[in-house]
């Protein structure tokens, strides 16, 4: 039971990170209908920028951890968001009204560019970071000496996710920008006729998605204590799987899918085999889609004849 509770905590934390990345996929899909293959690498770039800015801040003599974290968060969000904006501008906008596959391949190309850009600019080796947020609580001491641990970093990850989700939900449902985004999702031509600046709205979608991915990258850095140039690919595929599992285009679905993938992975590793955890996650995706062809919360596609 204790072991189960511990895995539940671990799974939720991992799922939160996946969920944050998945939101970026699902938002972009909802608004421009393309799979942004470069999004996983945006997450990786976010992790790198968090790592570099942390290193620089510490070497500049800053000691107050909360202040450092706040600055790192802001810097990585801003710079990563600019990456998202630039990529949309360069690689996707010229292909907006083109064929479905062209922007997708452009995105795959962009993903190669980002992966190898960070490999070339920062080297291929894994970058370790010492634990920054330490300590935690023991929730329950089991009779066999197994204790359920809840570390501070886990609390931070989950709290940050909840806060961001709240802000994000407010943004989409209550602000002018959110309304424009939903309008563009429905019908871009109509939205532009009604005075919505479609280009700007799409840019903002990429900016917000990238900023959320940056937070996920920073959380990953804090939680696992390392970044490497290839981490975007695996995390990206998982998060994309999460977005599809939840029903691509659905924001709550992305978070739900993220949590589901995180939990599946953790429990599979804990009870079956670590080696096959990804196989389990992907297999469950296939099985779910066979029975629910549009994911858990996706709108069923109505076929107009």
């Amino acid at each position: 039971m204790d072991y189960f509770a511990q895995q539940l905590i671990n799974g939720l934390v991992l799922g939160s990170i996946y969920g944050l990345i998945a939101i970026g996929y699902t938002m972009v899909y909802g608004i421009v209908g393309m799979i942004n293959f470069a999004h996983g690498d945006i997450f990786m770039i976010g992790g790198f920028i968090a790592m570099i800015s942390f290193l620089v801040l510490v070497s500049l003599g800053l000691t107050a951890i909360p202040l450092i974290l706040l600055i790192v968060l802001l810097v990585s969000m801003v710079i990563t968001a600019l990456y998202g904006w630039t990529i949309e501008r360069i690689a996707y906008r010229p292909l907006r009204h083109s064929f479905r596959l062209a922007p997708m391949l452009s995105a795959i190309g962009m993903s190669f560019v980002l992966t190898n850009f960070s490999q070339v600019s920062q080297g291929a080796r894994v970058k370790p970071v010492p634990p920054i947020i330490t300590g935690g609580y023991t929730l329950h001491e089991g009779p066999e000496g197994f204790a359920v641990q809840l570390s501070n970093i886990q609390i931070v990850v989950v709290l940050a996710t909840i806060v961001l989700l709240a802000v994000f939900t407010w943004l989409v449902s209550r602000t002018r920008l959110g309304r424009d985004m939903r309008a563009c999702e429905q019908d871009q031509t109509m939205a532009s006729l009604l005075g919505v600046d479609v280009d700007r709205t799409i840019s903002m979608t990429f900016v917000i998605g990238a900023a959320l991915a940056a937070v996920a990258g920073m959380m990953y850095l804090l939680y696992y204590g390392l970044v490497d140039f290839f981490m975007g690919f695996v995390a990206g595929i998982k998060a994309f799987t999460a977005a599809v599992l939840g029903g691509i285009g659905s924001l709550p679905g992305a978070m739900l899918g993220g949590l589901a993938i995180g939990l599946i992975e953790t429990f599979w590793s804990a009870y079956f085999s670590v080696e096959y955890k990804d196989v389990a996650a992907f297999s469950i995706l296939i099985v779910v889609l066979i029975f629910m062809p549009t994911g858990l919360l996706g709108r069923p596609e109505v076929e107009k004849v």
Partner: protein
Amino acid sequence: MSAISARPSHAAQPSGSAFILKKALISAAVALVLFSLMIGVRTEAGPQGGLIYWTRFGDLAALVGTVFGGSIIIELLRQWWGPVDKEHIVPKPVQAAMSFAGRWLAPALLVFAFLVPVIFYNQRYILDLSILVLTYVMLGWGLNVVVGLAGLLDLGYVAFYAVGAYSYALLATNFGLSFWVCLPLAGILAAFWGVLLGFPVLRLRGDYLAIVTLAFGEIIRLVIINWQSLTGGPNGVSGIPRPTLFGIPLDNSDDGLAARLGIDFSPTHRIVFLFYLILAMALLTNWVTIRLRRLPIGRAWEALREDEVACRALGINVTTTKLTAFATGAMFGGFAGAFFATRQGFISPESFTFQESALVLAIVVLGGMGSQLGVALAALTMIGGFELFRGFDQYRMLVFGIAMVLLMIWRPRGLIGHRAPTVFLERNQAISSDLVKEGHG
């Protein structure tokens, strides 16, 4: 800002040096922020395990300067060339020359391909590269059946390549079966896996199908890595037998081909043999595909890409039609995989990553969906171009990614933007790609 037009009309686009300068400055500023930490600061794991860093402001400045200059040049070029969607009138002679070249390109390429081992007999590097290009041509033609003809998006094509390669490798090393026995088996096994995956998932639409095929590709790769007792895991399978000329080995043994013919043995014999083998396999793929297009099954594939609902209304079984496309593509992938295994003599999971799937897909899309000649040209361009950067090892994938983005922007519909009809009464005229759909599946 005008509310009606989503993007400003070209006529209203300002020109003039102030505008160009402003644009370049903005680009440079964006580049400065983007590269500030990633280029300006270099991090590395230090000797004690902690991180150290040093600054590279010189590189940063150079890069930002390049972006500034590049932006000016691009803007000038753009103004000189005019709006992208403007029709550029091609002079008559040029047009005639192009159409002439278009008609003779395919036969000329074919003749050239047959002559490659004669012309470059002593240049091992070129022969190896040609074999590589032809392998990708074959993979491209195989995937073209699925993506180009049937309009089904398959992001895990490499899985079938892997199934083919491992089928041959394991059958040959464990049971001593020869290449010529294993080749059809590899194709059949790959097609079988195609059907197994396709059956439950082919009713999924569009991007759902894409992610499922991607997941399938990853599952196959992960199983290969982890099922160590069967596949050797990350270490791969080595000592895969080389192909024989119908039982005659191509080595310097007494019953080898060279000895039997009474000529001096040269390792080039095997390379030339491999070259003609893959050329024959690729041409077979091409021939079958061209034949299939003119048969009801191939027309149904294309019809499926155009309009699935209409297909159902014409009494076409959409599920089996999709499955046959999937299985046919998978089979060609399996053949190519078996060839890859026998050529390398060693295979490991590293050869079957998502990057391979993406590369083959890029070849198909860049070729112009459905065009056999286009796919061949795209494979030549991509693989050949990729080789040009062999010297700049670590920049290779970077350049490759940039090239992919630029090529897509330059030709979103691919190199060959026409579809040839499969049957005609009077005139065999190509159909503009603007009319051709690309499918939803």
